[in-house]
């Protein structure tokens, strides 16, 4: 006589998921002074804004899950957002077998386990997508906040470079700056 039986398999897994997103771009630094002098000015300005110098000369600052790295020599900016989470997922499946015809209990259990593994992979993939979305969102938000600051850095470096250049050209008689319009007037006696 054929007898049916039910197998229930439950699997749980824990994985460390990581996601990141980054953009690379170039600062537009005008060549008012020789490149090495411009790099020094940029480095000084970045230090004032909380950037730390690394062994390779890049200036790095970490803000709320985002890392901003600027190479003062090339002007290359890299902004990277990283997110990580330990995610637990559980999956459960049931299967019915028969004691006479059809797959035996061992092969049925293996088949269900295989399906469970795929279920878990799918769930982790969904979590990974969510985490990726978070990293991208954080990066986009951070870029919006960073943009005025970077513009400020570039403007400040340009102003400092112009002042230095003026000093090299002759005696600076007068310097007037308008913070609103961003204009800088330097009178030099040559």
């Amino acid at each position, binding site marked *: 006589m054929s007898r049916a039986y039910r197998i229930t398999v439950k699997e749980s897994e824990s994985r460390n998921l990581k996601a990141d*997103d980054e953009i690379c*771009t170039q600062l*537009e630094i005008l060549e008012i002074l020789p490149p090495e002098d411009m790099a020094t000015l940029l480095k000084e300005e970045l230090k004032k804004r909380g950037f730390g110098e690394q062994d390779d000369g890049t200036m790095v600052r970490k803000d709320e899950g985002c890392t901003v790295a600027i190479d003062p020599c090339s002007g290359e900016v890299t902004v990277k957002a990283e997110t990580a989470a330990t995610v637990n997922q559980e999956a459960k499946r049931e299967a019915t077998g028969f004691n006479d015809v059809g797959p035996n209990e061992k092969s049925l259990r293996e088949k269900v386990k295989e399906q469970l593994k795929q279920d878990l992979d799918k769930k982790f993939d969904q979590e990974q997508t969510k985490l990726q*979305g978070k990293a*991208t969102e954080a990066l986009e938000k951070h870029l919006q906040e960073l943009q005025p600051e970077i*513009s400020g850095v*570039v403007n400040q470096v*340009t102003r400092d470079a112009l002042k230095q250049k003026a000093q090299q050209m002759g005696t600076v008689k007068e310097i007037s700056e308008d913070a609103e319009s961003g204009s*800088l007037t330097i009178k030099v006696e040559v």
Partner: protein
Amino acid sequence: MAKGDEQARPDRAPPEPEGPRQVTKFEFNLLRILRFLVGHFPADQGLQFVRTPLTRPECLSAGAVELVKDTLSKASVLFLTRAGGWRNDKYLRNNQPAPGRVWDRIPLDERALQFSRPVLDFLLWLTAEKVHETKQAWDAAPKALTPADELFFALAFDAMRSDPDVLTVLRRKDTFVRNPFCWIMNPADVAEPDGNRPQPPDFAPVFAGQRAVLLECLQTHLTVRWTRTERAKGQIGDWRKMRQQGAAEFVALQGFLGAAEAARRTDLARFVLRTNAQVLQSDMTPVFWTGGLQGSGPPRLADRLETQRAALAVPRQMEILETWQERARYVGYFDDDYQASQMWKADWEAVNGDRVAARARAAVEMLEPLRGPTAAQTAAAADRAAGENPEGSPG
């Protein structure tokens, strides 16, 4: 005709047979395919012949070979003449400008096209095999090809690329993948679609000998092609396709311009300058290129940005051309490159290169994150606004 006349011209070719030549069914198909490849036969019917296999004969009849030679010679010359060879233009020859049509500038022995065995082998293979389900592999060593062969294979690739099955097969063959003319005419199609970074061939040989002459003839043709491609980019909806196409175009043009500079043949990069001038006729935003992209694109911002940058592959080349112009400005009367640099400056001014470069730069920079208006840019923009109105603006 008098007997004496016949003795006086012993090398005369045998008289043409009256009426059309007799060819076998295989030869008939082969000739039709050849005519399709050189653009003298409808594409849909030509591709039908390419998809239909026929049993390959032991050899071709002398008449059929004659017809192949005749078609190749006439069609190639006609194509090159129409593509731009007829134009009364100036190109560099021994670093000096040489004016005139191609047949005025270049001696006959330097522009005589020679086709070699791989062309006929390719035609035989194309006629005998169902290309996308081929039993017999065919390919030719790129180094064995003559300049005329390379041009023929580039035209053949262009004719057949509309069929995705055939394109997949052709993309695996060195004859096309290592052919610089294919890369300059169709970079997006010749590059491997799944490749992370497209690998164009070395463009240095294109700037010497007969290949350079071919490139001179192709300048107008290339300008039209690239302009059409640029204008069609706004219709591309698939992010992946856009990225692949842009990446292929970018590496192809970078390689090409690098080789042109090294060979001091900046005149052969006119099509890049003119394409930009055609496309950037007014101030443009990146939307012109990326406006057709559907959906929000890849989840990562890095990938989205990379795709958008790739879309502007052609305007991004203006940066290189600007450095050429900058250098040309400083070449003195007694320098070796004076004539060449004068010619480049004339080309640059003819298309208002400074304005085109400024527009290209503006469009490229709009994509770049963290590029806020600096004080200098704001002032310059204010000056511009006071001095002139952008093209197409109402006031």
